């Protein structure tokens, strides 16, 4: 583990220092685009909450593009693609085209931002700014409109989700046929809009479901059962129910979330960042992990292969004609998303988790160190600036966020690339260990 810590720390520092001008340029460009899109969203909020949401989606897209480009730059510096054996290199548009890469990584990146609360924080920030510039009674904030629709008109919201999904599929199909790049960006934007509506509306629907569940009789039965258990514990010692309650509250409220956050964030980020390096690299890593030194040359055989390639492998004959063909094409249009977007993220997560406890411990330690540094930087900035009126924070806030993010967010992205490269080295080493020994014998 000490070796892993040293390798990760030294290489991260080296990559950060060598690529600092390029990293800064990319990050600042992404930040500028994101802030401009956010300000446009605030302005559009007065006219239409849906237009504001579309502009808000753009802000995430800028952040994502910057992160993807930074990871690719770090990957090139670290020689990740150079680790692919020359005989195994196959040109794949998904691994070289930015728009194709965005299509694969947008969903997991946005999912991560949502899972760790960053989407909600950004949306609350947008709503606060709309209230600050308008009025607290303003009904048009993005959150209010989407959540209000989820409560009052859920079928309308579902219609918007289905409509935006179909629009995205249409744009993607046109992009594949024509190869016109702006269509790729438009597709990513539509998907971003679809995901954000899903996240905001879905959260509200989920609350309604949990509220409904809490009113069911079985919740009362569970409470009665808990009361019975407390009674039994009280027979052993009268303070025991209180101790057990406090311990459960501590584990569920404090220790559990803290431990979960400490392990899940770095690991899931590493898995999603790995998608940036492409399916070829991931397929090779997976084979090395299993101890197979060579990539399977059969297209479509890998877990990370495209849905179309997997289908071609399973069904070499031409699809049947007529209605059956249409039904098959429709099914593939929806299942294709699962193979092309959802499953690669899941397989990437499985890949990363099997890198070994020592490596994961070292990586979690360094990732956590960056998080802790960020917290202390927050404290330092607040200590230097002190408490201020809200006007000050709306003006200076984005620049202070930038001052915090520039050193630490860039280091974090470099660490992701270095950690993945280390995973590849560990897997390759494992494959080399398992390679059959050469047997010399008499002819």
């Amino acid at each position, binding site marked *: 583990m000490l070796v892993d810590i040293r390798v990760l720390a030294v290489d991260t520092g080296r990559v950060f220092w060598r690529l600092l001008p390029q990293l800064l340029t990319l990050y600042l460009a992404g930040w500028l685009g994101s802030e401009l899109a956010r300000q446009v969203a605030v302005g559009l909020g007065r006219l239409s909450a849906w237009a504001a949401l579309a502009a808000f989606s753009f802000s995430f897209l800028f952040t994502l593009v910057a992160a993807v480009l930074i990871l690719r730059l770090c990957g090139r510096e670290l020689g990740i693609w150079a680790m692919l054996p020359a005989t195994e290199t196959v040109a794949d548009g998904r691994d070289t085209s930015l728009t194709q890469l965005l299509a694969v990584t947008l969903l997991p990146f946005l999912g991560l931002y949502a899972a760790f609360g960053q989407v909600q924080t950004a949306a609350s920030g947008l709503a606060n700014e709309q209230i600050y510039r308008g009025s607290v009674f303003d009904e048009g904030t993005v959150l209010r409109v989407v959540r209000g629709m989820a409560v009052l008109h859920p079928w309308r919201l579902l219609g918007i989700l289905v409509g935006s999904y179909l629009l995205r599929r249409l744009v993607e199909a046109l992009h594949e046929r024509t190869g016109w790049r702006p269509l790729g960006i438009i597709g990513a934007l539509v998907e971003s809009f679809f995901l954000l509506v899903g996240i905001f509306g879905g959260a509200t629907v989920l609350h309604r479901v949990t509220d409904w569940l809490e009113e069911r009789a079985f919740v009362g039965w569970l409470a009665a059962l808990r009361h019975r258990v407390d009674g039994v514990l009280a027979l052993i010692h009268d303070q025991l129910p209180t101790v057990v309650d406090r311990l459960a509250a501590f584990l569920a409220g404090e220790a559990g979330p803290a*431990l979960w956050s400490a392990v899940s964030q770095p690991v899931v980020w590493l898995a999603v960042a790995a998608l940036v390096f492409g399916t070829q690299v991931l397929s090779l890593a997976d084979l090395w992990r299993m101890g197979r030194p060579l990539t399977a040359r059969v297209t479509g055989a890998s877990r990370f292969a495209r849905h179309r390639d997997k289908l071609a492998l399973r069904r070499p004959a031409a699809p049947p004609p007529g209605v059956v063909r249409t039904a098959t094409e429709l099914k593939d249009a929806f299942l294709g998303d699962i193979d092309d977007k959802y499953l690669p993220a899941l397989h990437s997560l499985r890949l990363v988790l099997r890198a070994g*406890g*020592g490596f994961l*411990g*070292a990586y979690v330690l360094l990732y*956590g160190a960056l998080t802790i540094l960020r917290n202390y930087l927050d404290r330092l900035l607040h200590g230097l*600036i002190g408490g*201020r*009126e809200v006007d000050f*924070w709306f003006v200076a806030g984005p620049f202070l966020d930038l001052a915090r993010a520039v050193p630490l967010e860039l280091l974090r992205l470099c660490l992701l690339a270095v950690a993945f490269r280390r995973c590849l080295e560990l897997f390759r080493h494992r494959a080399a260990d398992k390679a059959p020994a050469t047997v010399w014998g008499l002819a």
Partner: protein
Amino acid sequence: MSRRRVVGVVTALVCVTVVALGTRVSEESADYAVHRAPLGVLVDYDAGRAGVDAVEVGTRLVRNGQVTAQTTGVFVALRLHVQAPGTEEVRFQQVALLAQGSTSYAGYGLGSTVGAEPGFETTRLVLFEVSPGRITDLTFEGRNTKIVSGFHQRLQVHLGITAANAAGWAAAAQGREIAYEADEVTRGLG
């Protein structure tokens, strides 16, 4: 499970625990900065100055010779001074008395914010009704938080009631009247 794998898993768990503890300790617990001031001294607050003095305790409020309220607890009265020497107003949206533990008393009968317009000083009588058994280390706290606010300042002033003299303060409050003529007085700054 091989020994190496067990060691790896245990190492990872230890690292996760260390990171979780470190992250928890390093997180900023509050979205405000506390600005402590001594009793009777005006200190810088937001764009102006503010301070607290003239602490009194009693069980009856008397205004213009008439008893307006009585309590079985203790009324704590103090004067809050707010100055706005610059071009921005200085305001407290919320005031409270903090007591032992996490007890917090809201202003008694306080229907509006306390503040000064640019170029003026406002002195306001602020009342609190507290439990006589919880007056040790009573601390005035004032803040200017609105519906949307960022990292803000909170003014805290210890009222001088310590564990050593709390019983004396509580006894002194019994049967005592707090007389006042006006809630708020405003004067121009020179």
